C-alpha cells in the first residue's frame, strides 16, 4: 500500500500510517487539513465490514493462546490467567501474542492486567504495561489521564483540577458520584477491580471459512504463501479453541471471474499450525496460476474432534506412525496424490487387473486373494504394456532365444469386459529364461499368435 495513507470517516481522519503521522496527520483532523499537511496522502474510506472480518480472524487465531477471547470494537481481550504456566509466564505469553499478531499482518498495542477494562485502558495509553497483581494495576492506572472517561465526566474532573485517574479517586466517592455520574464511577470501579466486569466470550464459529482480500492482484503462487499463512494460523487457532483437528481444508483462490480450489488433504487429524503451513507451502509451490488472484478464502472441510492423547514424558521423536503420516502427506502434496500409493491384490485372473492402487493412508482393505493353495509363479514386476517379442526358429526371442522353463498356464478370462481397456484375454503363460539369464514371464496370445513379455521375476 502506498505511503503516506490514512483512513477517513465522515470527513475526519480516523488514523494515519507512520508516514502520515510524521507529517502531522493526527486523528480527528479534517480530510482537507490532511491533504494540506501531506500533499500526496492517500485517503481511504473506513470499511467497517473489513474491520470486523479482520477482528474475527484475529480472534480465531487467538484460540491458539487461550480458549476465552472477547472482541470489542477494536480491542481483543484474551483471558490468560489459566494459560500462564502452559506458556511459561506472562512475559513469554505476551511476546508470543505480539509476534502472532505481527505474523497476521497487524500491529497491536498490548497490555496485561487483572481487569479487562484496566488492560484495555493501559493498552491504549501505556502500551507494553504488564501488571501482575492488584498493586501494579493501581499504580499503572493512577497515572492515566481522566480523558479515558466519557467526555462530560472528564471535563467535570478537569474543572476541579483532577488530571489523572489517581487524583480523581482520591476524592470521596459520594462526592465523585455526584460530580461525574453513577455510570462513570462504575467504569472506574471496574477498571480498578472493585466491581465485577464480565465480558461476553467470542464464539468460535461452527464452520471455519475465512476470507482474505489481497491488497493487489497476485500472479505468483509462491507469493500467495505469505497471505495464506495468515489464514492457516487463524485456522490453527480456531482448531485449538475447538479441540478439533482437520482432515481436509480447501483454499479458494478467487480470480476476477472464476476461482481455483486447492484441496489440502492431511494424512491424519491435524491441528498444528506448522503442519498446516508445510502442506500449504508444498501445494502452492507446485501450483501454476491461471489468472491473477484477488482474494483468498480458507475453509476447513472435514473437521473432527481431536481424541485425547497422552504424550510421552520424553517427547523427542514423534511416534513412528505419526512421523510417517506427516511424511506421506508431504510427499503427496509435492509429487501429486496419485503418485503416492499402496498396492493390493485384486481378485482377477488377468495379471494386468490383479493389482489395485490404494491411497497410502487410511484403512487398507484389499479383496480376499482368489488363489488356491499353491499359487502359480507370479513376477514381482509387471510391464505396463506387454512387449511384443519376435519368434525366431519357432522360439520367442529377446536378446537371444528364450528357454521355456515352466508352463503353459492358460489364463482365459474377461470376455465380459469387451468395452474396457483390459478386455478379453486368452493367453498361455510361460516362465522363460533369457540368454542373459533374466527370468521372464512371457505369454503367447492364443488368437493373435504372438509372443509377449509381460513381467520380470526380479
Amino acid at each position, binding site marked *: 500500500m502506498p505511503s503516506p495513507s490514512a483512513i477517513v470517516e465522515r470527513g475526519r481522519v480516523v488514523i494515519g500510517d507512520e508516514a502520515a503521522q510524521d507529517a502531522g496527520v493526527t486523528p480527528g483532523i479534517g480530510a482537507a487539513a490532511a491533504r494540506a499537511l501531506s500533499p500526496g496522502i492517500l485517503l481511504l474510506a473506513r470499511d467497517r465490514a473489513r474491520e470486523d472480518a479482520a477482528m474475527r480472524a484475529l480472534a480465531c487465531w487467538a484460540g491458539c493462546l487461550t480458549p476465552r477471547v472477547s472482541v470489542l470494537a477494536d480491542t481483543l481481550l484474551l483471558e490468560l490467567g489459566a494459560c500462564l504456566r502452559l506458556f511459561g509466564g506472562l512475559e513469554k505469553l505476551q511476546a508470543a501474542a505480539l509476534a502472532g499478531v505481527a505474523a497476521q499482518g497487524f500491529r497491536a498495542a498490548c497490555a496485561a492486567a487483572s481487569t479487562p477494562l484496566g488492560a484495555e485502558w493501559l493498552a491504549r495509553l501505556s502500551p507494553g504495561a504488564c501488571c501482575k497483581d492488584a498493586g501494579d494495576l493501581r499504580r499503572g492506572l493512577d497515572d492515566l489521564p481522566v480523558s479515558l472517561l466519557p467526555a462530560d465526566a472528564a471535563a467535570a474532573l478537569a474543572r476541579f483540577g483532577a488530571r489523572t485517574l489517581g487524583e480523581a479517586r482520591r476524592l470521596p466517592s459520594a462526592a465523585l458520584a455526584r460530580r461525574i455520574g453513577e455510570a462513570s464511577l462504575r467504569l472506574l470501579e471496574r477498571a480498578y477491580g472493585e466491581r465485577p466486569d464480565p465480558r461476553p466470550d467470542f464464539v468460535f464459529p461452527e464452520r471455519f471459512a475465512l476470507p482474505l482480500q489481497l491488497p493487489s492482484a497476485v500472479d505468483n503462487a509462491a507469493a500467495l504463501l505469505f497471505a495464506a499463512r495468515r489464514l492457516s494460523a487463524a485456522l490453527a487457532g480456531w482448531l485449538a479453541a475447538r479441540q478439533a483437528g482437520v482432515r481436509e481444508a480447501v483454499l479458494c483462490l478467487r480470480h476476477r471471474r472464476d476461482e481455483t480450489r486447492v484441496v489440502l488433504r492431511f494424512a491424519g487429524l491435524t491441528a498444528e499450525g506448522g503442519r498446516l503451513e508445510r502442506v500449504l507451502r508444498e501445494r502452492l509451490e507446485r501450483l501454476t496460476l491461471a489468472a491473477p488472484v484477488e482474494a483468498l478464502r480458507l475453509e476447513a472441510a472435514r473437521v473432527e474432534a481431536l481424541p485425547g492423547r497422552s504424550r510421552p514424558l520424553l517427547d523427542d521423536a514423534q511416534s513412528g506412525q505419526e512421523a*510417517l503420516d506427516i511424511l506421506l502427506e508431504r510427499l503427496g502434496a509435492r509429487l501429486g496424490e496419485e503418485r503416492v500409493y499402496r498396492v*493390493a491384490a485384486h481378485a482377477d485372473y488377468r495379471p494386468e487387473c490383479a493389482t489395485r492402487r490404494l491411497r497410502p493412508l487410511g484403512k487398507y482393505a484389499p479383496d480376499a486373494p482368489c488363489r488356491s493353495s499353491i499359487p502359480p509363479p*507370479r513376477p*514381482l514386476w509387471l510391464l505396463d504394456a506387454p512387449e511384443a517379442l519376435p519368434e525366431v526358429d519357432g522360439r520367442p526371442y529377446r536378446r537371444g532365444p528364450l*528357454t521355456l522353463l*515352466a508352463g503353459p498356464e*492358460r489364463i482365459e478370462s474377461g470376455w465380459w469386459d469387451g468395452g474396457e481397456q483390459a478386455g478379453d484375454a486368452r493367453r498361455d503363460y510361460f516362465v522363460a529364461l533369457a540368454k542373459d539369464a533374466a527370468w521372464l514371464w512371457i505369454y*503367447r496370445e492364443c488368437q493373435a499368435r504372438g509372443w509377449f513379455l509381460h513381467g520380470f521375476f*526380479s
Partner: protein
Amino acid sequence: MTAALRHFSLDDILERPDVWRGRLAGARLPAVSSGFPALDAELPGGGWPRGALSELLSDDAGFGECSLLLPALNAAREEGRWAVLIAPPHALHAPAWVSAGVDCARLAVLAPESPRDLLWAAEQTLVSGAAGVVACWAERAAPGEVRRLQVAAAGGQAPAFLFRPRRARAQASAAPLRLLLSPGPQGTLGVELFKRRGPPCARTIFLELPRPAAWRDDHDALVARPASAAALHRGARPLAVA
C-alpha cells in the same frame, strides 16, 4: 580426566564404528540380516547396514535383484514399520508381493515425475526416519546427490538401498557399501562387494534365490519341437475359464 577415561574399556573403544581395525572392522555395526548367510558373512556388521546407503548396481530387471531385498522388507514388517519404494522401474504385481510375504498394507510406492522430485522424495523419506526400509531406483544420480542421500540415511536407523545402472561403478560414491549384481551359474545371483567398510572382498558370492521354476541346463528341452499353438493348447490347463 582419568576418572572420565576409566569408564571406557579398550573393548568399548574398539567397538565404536569409527575405529578402523582392518580385518575385524565394524564387528558391531548396526545391521539387518540380509536373509542369506553367505552374504551376511561378508557384509560388515553381518547384514545390510542400518543408517547407511547400500548401492546395488544392476542394468536390467529379472535377475533377482528384488528377491535379494525381500528378507529385508519382511524384517521391516516384523518391526511393524513401513517399507517405501521410490520410483520402481516397473509396476508392482501385487499378488506376487503378497505371496512373497510382503505386508502390502505397509508398503508405500512413490512414483515421482522427474529425477529432481525423485531425489527430493528419497531425501525426505530418509531424513524423516519414519520408514523401516527404503529402496530407491535412480537412473541418474550425480556423486553430490548420492552423498546427500547418504547423509540423509545416516540420520536414521533404516537400511537404505539405491539401485543404479552398472555404469555407475566407475563413479565415486559416498555409499559405504556398493554391490554389483550379475547373473551367476545355475540360476544363481552373483554379488560382488566391490566396496565395503573394512578389508576389500575379492570374491563374488553366488546366492541361491527362490526362482519360479527349476533351472535347467538343457536349453532346448522345451523348444526342441517347434511350439505349435495346437500342441501348446492341448497341454494347457485352463486355470480360469469364465
